[in-house]
């Protein structure tokens, strides 16, 4: 498949997926009990009068038939209009625009850190003894099994409260990012290392590695020229998953480290039944997922042009 055809298929597929996500969210949200008008008027604890509720219903077209609402909703989405947040009374796009960079930064840094750690661990494992390698493998599995919420708390206890080395909460400085990034990155690094070690081990024990050694390549060069690519491939295939799990993890990490971001907005939006906000964030995450997947696939094509498309 040519690159143009590939890109065309990707974009078409992405649009279909986005439409499906939008529809799924629409259905899911209509299923949630509770009157959206109440959410608009400040939640069920409010003293909103019946007229005020009716006015809100009319304003947000909630009094129309469901299918009309759906069409209206799709139409707005097509015009890139995500609506106004019920609870914040601000355009969703604006709110997301404000908090988005934080989450993206956090996730990207965590992704990069996880990759870096995984590469180092995987590389170290190929050189070390059987015992060390098994120990390393256990460590990865443990890292992958540590829940974010627990890890975050433990890191704060250790590095902020007890040792006082790093700030517990976001204070705008680079230091404030260290603990949240670590919290997000460690479990992911555990996963990636497991993946990379498997394929790195396979690559380093393969015939072509032997051939390379027979040409006089040193172990280090072997790692750089061959091992790295083979290690990266399966991990790349997992990047979409990794990124979307990072977004999930961000909900917890942003709550623990008091960082502004998409995750926190999401949690409070769901709790406040803030439909436009939830929709906006969900669609956005789906878009990010699709873009990241496409990037990863593009990178895969670059590394392995002959590899089959999935």
């Amino acid at each position, binding site marked *: 498949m040519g690159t143009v055809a590939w890109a065309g298929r990707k974009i078409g597929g992405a649009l279909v997926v986005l439409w499906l996500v939008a529809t799924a969210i629409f259905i899911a949200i209509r299923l949630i*009990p509770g009157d959206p008008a109440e959410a608009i008027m400040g939640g069920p604890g409010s003293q909103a009068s019946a007229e005020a509720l009716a006015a809100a219903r009319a304003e947000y077209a909630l009094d129309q038939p469901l299918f009309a609402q759906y069409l209206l909703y799709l139409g707005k989405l097509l015009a890139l209009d995500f609506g106004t947040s019920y609870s914040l009374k601000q355009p969703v796009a604006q709110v997301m625009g404000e908090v988005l960079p934080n989450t993206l930064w956090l996730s990207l840094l965590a992704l990069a850190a996880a990759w870096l750690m995984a590469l180092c661990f995987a590389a170290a494992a190929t050189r070390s003894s059987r015992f060390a390698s098994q120990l390393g493998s*256990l460590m990865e599995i443990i890292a992958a*099994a540590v*829940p*974010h919420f627990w890890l975050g708390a433990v890191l704060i206890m250790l590095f902020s409260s007890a040792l006082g080395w790093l700030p517990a909460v976001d204070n705008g400085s680079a230091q404030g990012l260290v603990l949240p990034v670590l919290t997000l990155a460690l479990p992911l690094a555990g996963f990636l290392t497991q993946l990379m070690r498997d394929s790195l081990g396979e690559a380093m024990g393969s015939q072509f590695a032997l051939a390379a050694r027979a040409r006089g390549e040193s172990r280090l060069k072997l790692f750089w020229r061959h091992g790295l690519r083979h290690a990266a491939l399966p991990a790349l295939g997992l990047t979409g998953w990794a990124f979307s799990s990072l977004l999930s993890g961000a909900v917890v990490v942003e709550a623990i480290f008091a960082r502004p971001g998409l995750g926190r907005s999401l949690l409070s939006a769901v709790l406040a039944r803030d439909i436009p906000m939830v929709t906006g964030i969900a669609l956005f995450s789906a878009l990010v997922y699709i873009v990241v997947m496409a990037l990863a696939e593009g990178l895969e094509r670059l590394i392995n042009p002959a590899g089959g498309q999935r």
Partner: protein
Amino acid sequence: MSRTAKILSAIVIGLWLLMALAPSVLAPGDPLAINPVQAFQKPGAAHFFGTDESGRDIYTRVIHGASDSLSIGLAATALGMGLAIILGTVAALSPRWIDDIILRVLEALYAIPSLLMALLIIAFTGPGVGPAIVAVGLSTAPGYARLVRSQIRSLKNSEMLEAATVLGRGSWLKVRNHLVPNALKPLLALVTLGIGQAVIWAAALSFLGLGAAPPAPEWGAMLSAGRTYLHLAWWMSLFPGLAIVAVAVSATLIGRALGGKVKSL
């Protein structure tokens, strides 16, 4: 799977099962029994893992919590896997256009971050153990389904099935004797890996206050309660946390021993 790995796995599974099915053998006490006077006791001879804010014995609670946490993990994985097997098999064996539709739907489900999916489900059903199971199960299903699909597709085109065709086996025999059992074996490994992840997931929901409600001795809920007292009573969050990690680690180890690779998640 090597012999030692088999024995070890059997022991570990046995231990978890014992904890889940007959916790009183290991911890005879009542996990809900309060004793406010004995609150916040450090781990020691009287209380191996210390006590919590209401004086409940954390060791007893951790042991008794296995049943809740493990059954959430098991049930969620079973749900996710069940759905995945149906969707994946249908997709793999159907004509191209049905396959395409299912694939797109799966991709759309996959594109929604799992926690968001869980939050939406819980917003719909309200918090609790059942919803947590459904949430975790549903949000893991698309990943499994894609795997089942590719598994069955590659089997469908394998020489093994061609050989069966040449031997004159009908479709039903091929599916029953070869396709299903061979597709299931790697899934078994995957399920084991998945259970560990599901336990973590369920704990995460409890931690956010959306899963099992305290004072049930569910590990995530215990962790959630313990985090308030992180500065005073580290043991309240340490031990349930370790239990979660231990389950996930042993599930991964057993899954790997069964030949599972993380790749597949």
